């Protein structure tokens, strides 16, 4: 006979204000099988948990129902507490009377009644629960990092330095990401490359890190501690071992007019190329779309000049298989172009550029060697206008969120411009200045007071070209919306930061959730910011939301420490909520008829055939068997099974039927 304790949490006002908790407790005590029920202000608090433990002992309870917040929030907390008091953790269930009741309904009878029903449902479920033991699985102590920007680099170094193997996969020919494109960084104005490139070299030299560049994740199988990743290494057309990175090929390549991605299409590169001089690995790639040989079948100049005969025109994509215990996503972000903004010229004015393009202009390694020059005619702009929120906070044409980094980099851009063109005139149209960060506000003030950047609070309505000038029609809302017209030589749009292309496809490939803007979602917005909802997969940097460098780096180290924590044990325990095929004494052995529909249904290849033998070793029956290491407990097989021979622990048929019956027959209480 079950002895169940019911514990109703007020969650302060959160539940208490709308649900009559005392009444819920009172009514639940009348439920069959409930020996004790009580309400309390904060169940999750230490005294709350002590109360539960104490009651378990005094009432020697066999099961517990905690009516409080969502189980996604505190189920582990209470299961742990109860097991400490001697109740098997899987005999504990939570009734979600906060997210699914008090927060979504108004105060009143009906709401309280719903809370009672939810408790009733869980009581009936617990009656059908069985004590379970958690499963132990080995952990493969190697991490897969996707993305070699600053976040991916930081994560890799941290994990590698903790003594674990790291496989770093980068889509581009070189690691470095967006940070390698930046000129100086706010708020210190130190050169981005000077602080980044040493880290890139560290990655290349660290014996624990295997860098696979110009590659993408092909597919992923398995689960936390035991992932199997297939990585597609795109054909470089160059033998990386033979190549010394002397760069002779790139100097001799005849097709030289290809827009350089690294320079945001403001400079040119050759068909065989290294994205930038400090690239890691410093080995060239042949861009087959633009290579004369691949287009018309002749040329091969690179092959002729290569001193180490490293060119491989016949090279093919290679699939590399890796077994890893954890994965960190660090795939970064993208910026919108200028072409999605009709009123700023649909991208038809050469001298209307994006912030990232400005970075390349300002960078000493950029197409203009650090001079600020107009893309159209190479002139140095005497008047320059920066437009903040170009796409951000713009539900109509862009995205509704704030891209977070623009306020700071725009201030920086204006500063850099003033330092390079002291007599120049820089104006910034802004809506708000969001400079929350160490030394950030001070930085912006410096731009205004010392570098005499004109900050105009208002948005720009239109930009058009006239006699080689860009006419910027804005307004000053601090002067009551007075129109302001500026004849500029160059306009820089602080275009919004958006998810990197392919983010959605990747998320679907590895089953992590993502938000409406295709940024990956964290497991909990406050308490689990670097984890995803998929155990063993973590987040670092701007693939989660737009972030500046220090934030990305700290998030990266956070993710790394999570991975290191996971690797600190050689085996980990998993919840036993998995499928099992029933067994019974001879002559039946199992009700499984051996149709093996389940095998075809299982997404994890977790079900295999098992031959049941009698004591003489004679095969009596071939039935299905679940591999507890592989089963993830989705239960698809259970719904498939025609003979009800396979069931899933924690969500068994009995439990579900009991829940349904309880929910719909609330006349008892």
């Amino acid at each position, binding site marked *: 006979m079950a002895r169940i304790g019911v514990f109703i949490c007020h969650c302060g006002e959160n539940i208490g204000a709308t649900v009559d908790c005392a009444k819920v407790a009172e009514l639940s005590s009348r439920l069959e099988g409930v020996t004790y029920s009580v309400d309390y202000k904060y169940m999750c608090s230490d005294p709350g948990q002590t109360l539960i433990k104490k009651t378990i002992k005094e009432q020697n309870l066999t099961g517990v129902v905690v009516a409080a917040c*969502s*189980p*996604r*929030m505190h189920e582990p907390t209470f299961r742990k507490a109860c097991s400490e008091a001697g109740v098997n953790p899987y005999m504990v269930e939570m009734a*979600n009377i*906060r*997210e*699914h*009741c008090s*927060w*979504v*309904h*108004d105060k009143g009878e*009906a*709401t309280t009644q*719903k809370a009672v*029903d*939810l408790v009733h*449902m869980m009581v009936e479920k617990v009656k059908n629960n069985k004590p379970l033991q958690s499963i132990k699985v080995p952990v493969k102590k190697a991490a897969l990092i996707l993305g070699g920007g600053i976040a991916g680099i930081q994560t890799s170094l941290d994990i590698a330095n903790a003594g674990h193997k790291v496989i770093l996969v980068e889509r581009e020919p070189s690691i470095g990401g967006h940070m390698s494109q930046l000129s100086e960084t706010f708020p210190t104005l130190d050169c981005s490359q000077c602080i980044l490139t040493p880290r890139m070299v560290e990655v290349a030299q660290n014996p624990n890190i295997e860098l696979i560049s110009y590659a993408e994740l092909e597919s992923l199988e398995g689960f936390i501690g035991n992932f199997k990743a297939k990585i597609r290494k795109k054909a470089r057309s160059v033998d990386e071992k033979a190549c010394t990175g002397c760069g002779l090929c790139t100097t001799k390549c005849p097709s030289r007019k290809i827009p350089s991605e690294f320079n945001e299409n403001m400079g040119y590169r050759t068909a065989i190329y290294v994205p930038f001089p400090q690239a890691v690995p410093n080995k060239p790639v042949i861009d087959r779309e633009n290579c004369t040989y691949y287009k018309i079948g002749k040329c091969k100049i690179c092959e002729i000049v290569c001193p180490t005969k490293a060119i491989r025109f016949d090279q093919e994509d290679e699939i590399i298989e890796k077994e890893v215990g954890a994965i960190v996503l660090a795939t970064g972000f993208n910026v919108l172009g200028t072409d999605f903004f009709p009123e700023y010229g649909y991208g038809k004015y050469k001298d209307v550029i994006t912030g990232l393009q400005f970075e390349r202009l300002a960078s000493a390694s950029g197409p203009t060697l650090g001079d600020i020059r107009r893309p159209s005619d190479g002139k140095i702009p005497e008047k320059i206008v920066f437009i903040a929120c170009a796409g951000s906070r713009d539900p109509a044409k862009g995205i509704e969120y704030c891209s977070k980094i623009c306020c700071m980099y725009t201030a920086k851009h204006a500063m850099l411009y003033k330092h390079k063109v002291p007599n120049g005139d820089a104006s910034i149209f802004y809506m708000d200045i969001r400079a929350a960060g160490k030394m950030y506000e001070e930085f912006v003030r410096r731009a205004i007071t010392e570098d005499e950047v004109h900050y105009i609070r208002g948005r720009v309505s239109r930009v058009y070209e006239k006699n080689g000038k860009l006419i910027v029609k804005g307004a000053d809302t601090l002067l009551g919306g007075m129109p302001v017209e500026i004849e500029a030589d160059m306009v820089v749009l602080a275009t919004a930061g958006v998810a990197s292309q392919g983010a959605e496809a990747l*998320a*679907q490939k590895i*089953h992590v*959730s993502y*938000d*409406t803007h295709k940024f990956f*979602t964290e497991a909990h917005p406050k308490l689990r910011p670097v984890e995803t*909802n*998929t155990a063993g997969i973590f987040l670092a940097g701007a693939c989660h939301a737009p972030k500046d460098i220090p934030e990305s780096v700290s998030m990266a180290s956070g993710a790394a420490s999570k991975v290191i924590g996971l690797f600190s044990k050689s085996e980990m325990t998993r919840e036993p*909520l998995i499928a099992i095929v029933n067994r019974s004494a001879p002559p039946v052995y199992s009700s499984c008829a051996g149709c093996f529909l389940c095998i075809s*249904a299982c*997404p*994890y290849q977790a079900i295999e055939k098992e031959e049941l033998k009698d004591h003489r070793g004679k095969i009596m029956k071939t039935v299905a068997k679940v591999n507890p290491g592989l089963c*993830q*407990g*989705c*239960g*698809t097989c*259970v*719904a*498939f099974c025609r003979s*009800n021979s396979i069931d*899933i622990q924690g*969500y068994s*048929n009995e439990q*579900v*039927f009991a*829940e*349904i*019956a309880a*929910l*719909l*027959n609330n006349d008892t209480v």
Partner: protein
Amino acid sequence: MEFEPKIVAFVCNWCTYAGADLTGTSRIKYSNDVKIIRFPCTGRIDFMYLLKAFAEGADGIIVSGCHPNDCHYTSGNFHARRRWMVFEGLLNFIGIDSRRIVFSWISAAEGAKWAELVNKTVKSIQELGPYTQYQKVAGTFKKEVTNG
């Protein structure tokens, strides 16, 4: 006073359940006629449960999980959808009004959509009225399904 339907929602833990949590966190109000039963995945949902629910007196049912391709377990939601296609035919055949079952995808980010779905369903079920016909035949049914 207006008839308050009994509606059971079978939802997946990873998308819709989390979505409904978000509805709460964002304090969006919705009708309390719907109660949620949590599953690891819509792929787990044996449609016998729907019949059981009707047998026990449900007036309407919501089945909701992850959007196509977003399934936490790769393909559970597809299995559920396929099974639903077959099952719907069966329902119509045995004369159960399939308008009483609402199938939907709601992600962990779609709190508002959950509230919408609930209110829409409650309204449409109210229009259809209480569902007693099936309970009559259900007696025999109960025995059959619960012995599994």
